[in-house]
């Protein structure tokens, strides 16, 4: 506990990127980045260089999640290592990952961008969600605390994915402080005005925070409620791997609400209920996300946790 009494120092967060189109059919990010590329006035802040960037232009052009492979899983050490020969045989997204790592990284080095915001939409009823990759990133925790307070009473929740097996190599992971923005529900390929505006507001607050931080403001210690990823639950399938049940009507759209042992979870196509068999109450999210059918995921379970961040100040 004593470590929280010290103020953590971070260098100025000058280099900031805003990624859209990591999945080419998630329209809020694509639209915002295109807008800001044309006219960046809205994202300008004192002492901040905010760069809007379309990460997967081919997928955006085809309005599809990806062309060869999921870009948001492609930033593995193997894919990014300079030993890997660049060439025509590599999937498009792996080439893109290497390019993005050159521009905004290299991942893990002092030259990497300070902050990357990666804009996503989901078909799940998750509302406004911030995705955190490390519980020890006090800069990110303080930013998320700031955003949540600025948005209140509107909700903005934090999903922490630090799970050793379920964590994945995101485009934003190239930066020192990666921040995922996930706003739903929105169908793929569709632009909903309310979802678009919500994402815009989150980014406004995020950039305000960075500007304040860069001016030298000290942010006192804070606590942040997060939902920590526990496990992935797949759809029930038959021997051939075909889905044989759907998310139960009682669970559909109930992201972040408690799921208790015995609660309805799936409904088979002929109407039978399958119940949640876990040992305790969990908080499900990413319920019925279209892109996750192929990733064997109907929803993920989380548990509520309170993280503590020490005070932070510019070095």
């Amino acid at each position, binding site marked *: 506990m004593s470590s929280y009494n010290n103020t953590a120092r971070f260098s100025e967060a000058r280099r900031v990127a805003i990624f859209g189109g990591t999945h080419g059919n998630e329209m809020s990010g694509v639209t915002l980045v295109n807008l800001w590329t044309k006219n960046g006035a809205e994202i300008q802040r004192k002492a901040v260089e905010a760069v809007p960037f379309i990460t997967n232009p081919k997928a955006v052009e085809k309005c599809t999640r990806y062309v060869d492979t999921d870009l948001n899983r492609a930033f593995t050490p193997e894919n990014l290592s300079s030993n890997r020969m660049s060439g025509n045989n590599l999937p498009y997204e792996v080439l893109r990952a290497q390019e993005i790592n050159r521009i905004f990284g290299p991942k893990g080095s002092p030259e990497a961008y300070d902050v990357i915001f990666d804009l996503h939409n989901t078909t799940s009823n998750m509302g406004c969600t911030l995705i955190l990759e490390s519980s020890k990133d006090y800069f990110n925790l303080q930013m998320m605390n700031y955003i949540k307070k600025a948005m209140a009473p509107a909700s903005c929740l934090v999903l922490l994915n630090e799970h050793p097996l379920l964590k994945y190599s995101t485009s934003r992971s190239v930066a020192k402080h990666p921040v995922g923005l996930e706003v739903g529900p929105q169908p793929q390929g*569709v632009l909903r005005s309310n979802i678009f505006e919500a994402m815009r507001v989150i980014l406004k607050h995020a950039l305000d925070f960075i500007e304040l931080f860069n001016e030298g403001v000290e942010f006192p210690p804070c606590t942040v409620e997060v939902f920590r990823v526990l496990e992935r639950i797949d759809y029930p399938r038959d021997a051939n791997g075909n889905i044989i049940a759907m998310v139960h009507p009682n669970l559909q759209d109930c992201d972040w609400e408690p799921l208790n042992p015995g609660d309805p979870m799936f409904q088979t*196509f002929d109407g039978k209920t399958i119940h949640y068999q876990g040992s305790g109450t969990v908080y499900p999210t990413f319920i019925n996300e279209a892109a996750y059918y192929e990733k064997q995921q109907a929803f993920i379970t989380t548990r509520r946790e309170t993280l503590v961040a020490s005070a932070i100040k510019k070095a």
Partner: protein
Amino acid sequence: MEVDQVVPLPRLPRVAVCGGTHGNELSGVYLVRELLKLQREVMKKEQEEDLKPASVLLVLSNPRAMQQCRRYVDTDLNRCFTHATLNGPLSDMAPYEIIRSRELNALLGPKGSPAAVDLVCDLHNTTANMGLCFIAYSDCDWICLHIFRHLQREMPDTPMRFLHFDVSNKESYSLDSVGKHGFAMEIGPQPHGVVRSNIYTAMKVGVQHMLDWVRLFNSGNVFEGGFVDVFTMVKHIDYPRDSETRNITAAIHPCLQDRDFCLLHPEDPLFQTFSGETVRYKGTEPLYPFFINECAYYEKGIALSLARKRRVTIPAIRVQTEQEQQPNEQGFASEEEE
């Protein structure tokens, strides 16, 4: 309506239920798969008990698009069923869906011939908040209108509308136009690539009631006359677009989003530009919007469609007796010509 005004119509011995015409509209995909599974089980039983086989054709229309969970592979299958496309010359490089449309025409048609199935029900989903819609080319096909009314009565908690696209038989382009009678059953809102249990269940129940109606009809049941509110498509409205890039510059206004079939008046908000301005409806006639923000229509230049509503009176109907059936066998005549 009086008994002597009952209109006798030909029997409907062959019905087709089609899913996956668009490969990412999943309620229909999963429902037809489930019905195929049940049909196999029933057929096994029927073989054992030597019963008459079922006369419902279950079809997965676009298997390649289904496998990739996409709307289509080369071109929209549900635009490939015009007479011209079905009968024109076929090159080696023909798009997958053109080849498939001919296979489906051979299976369920040929379109316009006496061999065509009697009724095609083509299952679709939309990202628009349309509830359950029948989409048909005719506003005087008594079979389709009676089936619709039957569903309205059996499913009173499901918002339901009858949509009419006034397209001639010559120009009709969708799969359901291959049968002697046909309609699309369109249910939303559901994102593409997702199956929502409430939407799936509505579709399953709707198809069941349709098949029940056909059995009742074929068995001689008299269906009393009445009226149906029909929405006839008038026009489409596209998004405001950048003149150079053709990218959209506005989204459906929050006041219009999800308000399918809520009357739109002149000067009502239509779009909200990304700089916050409101673009208003400039038409002079109040009309009913639908297919508001349907994902697949961005590329077709449609942000929403508009319809006029009118009340259509439908006569009482029953199946033709064997004697009444005979003139039909000599020449193929549709009841619309009566």
